[in-house]
């Protein structure tokens, strides 16, 4: 794989907005003083499963982007649109007639917005006439809405792809993006993933995840700009994705089978990047804090690293269960460490992902510390 050079990024999560927003949560994580989210009562009229959750409670897209073109956006589209705009700005790329055909977006999701789909169905069931739905909201029910809306706002006419990968979405985004650049379908890409906090997502997490008592639902979006010819316009790099592997194992194999598949994916991606286990400084994990869930990852990592376990960063414990956004938040957390500590320049990190139905993925990052003034 040709390395994906990252020059420019942004992140939104319950911790805030922008490249500096993960600094505090990461410090708290190191200190072991976890934060159980924000008070979310009042965020929605519908009941929520927990009084606190990892939601960006004061997020208002109109305050950030204005009213024009934002009134019909659902929450995930709004989060993604803000992240895309900030990442693009951070990259220094100026979009104009000369380059807009060659700049695209690759965005990861679980299923778009369950709330948008459900609200639409609900209207057909409760309205006097079942077809009295709002036509302006119809595009929100489709999974590629966020990427399509962001393309319109920023004038990006290159490849526009949405990948429904669930917890593995961002690993797929990296692989898909690497292929687009390798085959020269694009010169630059906004690579990201998004998940929204709604009653629907919160209850889905509560009812399906073993760890949901300790780990409430969250939300987030992170977008990274990759360039065919290296970093952003100033040539400064935030990091390079050296390799990405995804795979699948039949669920008949159980959690031991998923652990073996994850181990295999990690070994393969380290080999593809020509990196030895001793070179890995950090692992951004998908740990939830539930022993029942975490045993898969633990088994895979222990088989590879034994007692020489690199330092682990568990973003879900800091930012909640953000499903499709998780992988992007893992990368954002690693890049935050590099941004804050230039001594880490060139160090190698591993990102792990897996899903209970058998999907596994891993990526290798070489972090850079580009220096220079921060935008926010």
């Amino acid at each position, binding site marked *: 794989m040709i390395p994906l050079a990252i020059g420019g990024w942004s992140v939104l999560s319950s911790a805030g907005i922008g490249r500096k927003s993960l600094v505090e949560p990461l410090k708290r994580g190191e200190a072991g003083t976890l934060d159980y989210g924000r008070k979310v009562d009042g965020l929605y009229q519908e009941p929520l499963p927990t009084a606190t959750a990892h939601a960006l409670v004061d997020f208002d897209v109109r305050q950030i982007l204005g009213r024009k073109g934002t009134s019909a956006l659902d929450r995930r589209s709004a989060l993604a649109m803000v992240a895309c705009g900030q990442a693009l700005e951070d990259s220094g790329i100026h979009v104009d007639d000369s380059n807009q055909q060659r700049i695209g977006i690759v965005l990861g999701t679980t*299923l778009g917005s369950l709330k948008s789909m459900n609200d639409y*169905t609900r209207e057909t069931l409760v309205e006097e006439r079942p077809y009295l*739905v709002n036509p302006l909201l119809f595009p929100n029910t489709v999974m590629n809405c966020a990427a399509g809306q962001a393309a319109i706002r920023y004038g990006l006419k290159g490849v526009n792809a949405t*990948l429904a990968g*669930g917890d593995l979405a961002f690993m797929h985004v990296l692989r898909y993006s690497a292929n687009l650049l390798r085959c020269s379908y694009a010169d630059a890409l906004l690579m990201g993933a998004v998940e929204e906090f709604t009653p629907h997502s919160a209850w889905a997490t509560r*009812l399906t995840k073993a760890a949901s008592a300790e780990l409430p639902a969250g939300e987030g979006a992170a977008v990274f700009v990759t360039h065919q010819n290296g970093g952003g316009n100033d040539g400064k790099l935030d990091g390079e994705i050296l390799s990405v592997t995804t795979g699948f194992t039949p669920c008949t194999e159980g959690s031991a089978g998923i652990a073996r598949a994850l181990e295999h994916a990690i070994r393969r991606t380290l080999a593809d990047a020509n990196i030895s286990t001793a070179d890995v400084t950090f692992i951004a994990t998908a740990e939830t804090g539930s022993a029942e869930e975490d045993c898969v990852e633990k088994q895979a990592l222990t088989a590879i690293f034994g007692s020489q376990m690199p330092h682990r960063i568990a973003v879900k414990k800091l930012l909640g269960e953000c499903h499709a956004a998780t992988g992007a938040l893992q990368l954002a957390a690693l890049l935050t460490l590099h941004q804050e500590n230039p001594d880490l320049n060139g160090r190698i990190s591993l990102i792990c992902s897996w*899903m209970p139905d058998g*999907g596994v993925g891993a990526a290798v990052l070489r972090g850079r510390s580009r220096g220079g003034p921060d935008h926010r």
Partner: protein
Amino acid sequence: MNRVVITGLGPVSSIGIGKPAFCEGLRAGRSGISPIRCFDLTGFPHVCAGEVHQFRPESLLRRLTPSAWGRSTLFAAAAARLAVQDARLDTDQVDSGRMGVVMGTTCGESQVAEALAAEILKHGFESQSPELLQQAPGSRLAHGVSEELGATGESLTISTACSASNYAIGYAFDCISHGEADVMIAGGADSVCRWVHAGFFRLGTLAKDACSPFDRNRSGILTAEGGAALVLETLDHALARGARPYAEVLGYGLNCDADHMVAPNASSIAACMRLAQGRARIQPSDVDYICAHGTGTPSNDSVEFQAIRTVFGEAIPPVSSIKSMLGHTMGAASGFGAIASCLAITEGFLPPTINWSTPDPEMEGLDMIPNQARRAEVRIVQNNGFAFGGNNAIVILGEVV
């Protein structure tokens, strides 16, 4: 760079399940449109769609337990099983890590999402079934296919709406041509559901009982469902196991209108055609047949024709819309288009645009193969796919020479 060929076709459609029935349906110009059965139609002025009433997942699937998966995944997995059988591919003989899956979709497990909405409405959020919630993610489509076939390579669901199957075929083509996989199963699936029917009606783009693309009086789409899957492999892999390829994937093009969420854009679509043709190293004059996106809405067909005219000038090849027969199968649509394109090449016929009666004066010079299939020698096909979000994807397929 490996040459990539298509060796297996798996259609699960309203006009036929499996290649022989589907091919016969295309040739006969059969309509798969019927009154909707999957939801209560009370209060809906329009009541027709392209449901696959004959679909019996348990009779097609070997490994998946139908009750554990949503309808769209069952369509995808059944289509994949049929495609593998059609390819005479013994999956046990393939290195499972070098067999991957890419499935496209618009609304994923829409019927599951609707069942959840009904549960919430009746008994509140906490009453939702965990089993249904686990069936809802879009990733289930590709994962269900991987599970059914025992494929352990990449397993990806692309959710770029109604052109998603073409994205899937394109990505599978790249993976194989760069040597990352020996075999890829590519295609797409979607299910008929209430909210999509209501949404298109409200947009004013839902036909009453017949979809008539390229007709002056066309009135819109009919929602539809199904699964389309194709087996892609390297030419060498195919020849080594004695398979007979239907067609070669010559290239594909992707771009984005970045203009409007639902209205198509002629210049952007023309640009996408040029991208695809450039990638496939062909000229417009090399194209023998265009398998159109052809939804039957006034705006799509007019914009698609304008784009074709821009790229092909006066020499427009025959253009037909199989959506006239199937309805709009959403994420499966360009997969069915690719299957029809393969059949056009190997069986030597052009699928018709049925329900056609009145010429549209704005489309002078367009041969839409009205109402009856036609014998023809077809070497190169352009398979168009456009979508909400301006996600255009066009695949070029050619005779294997």
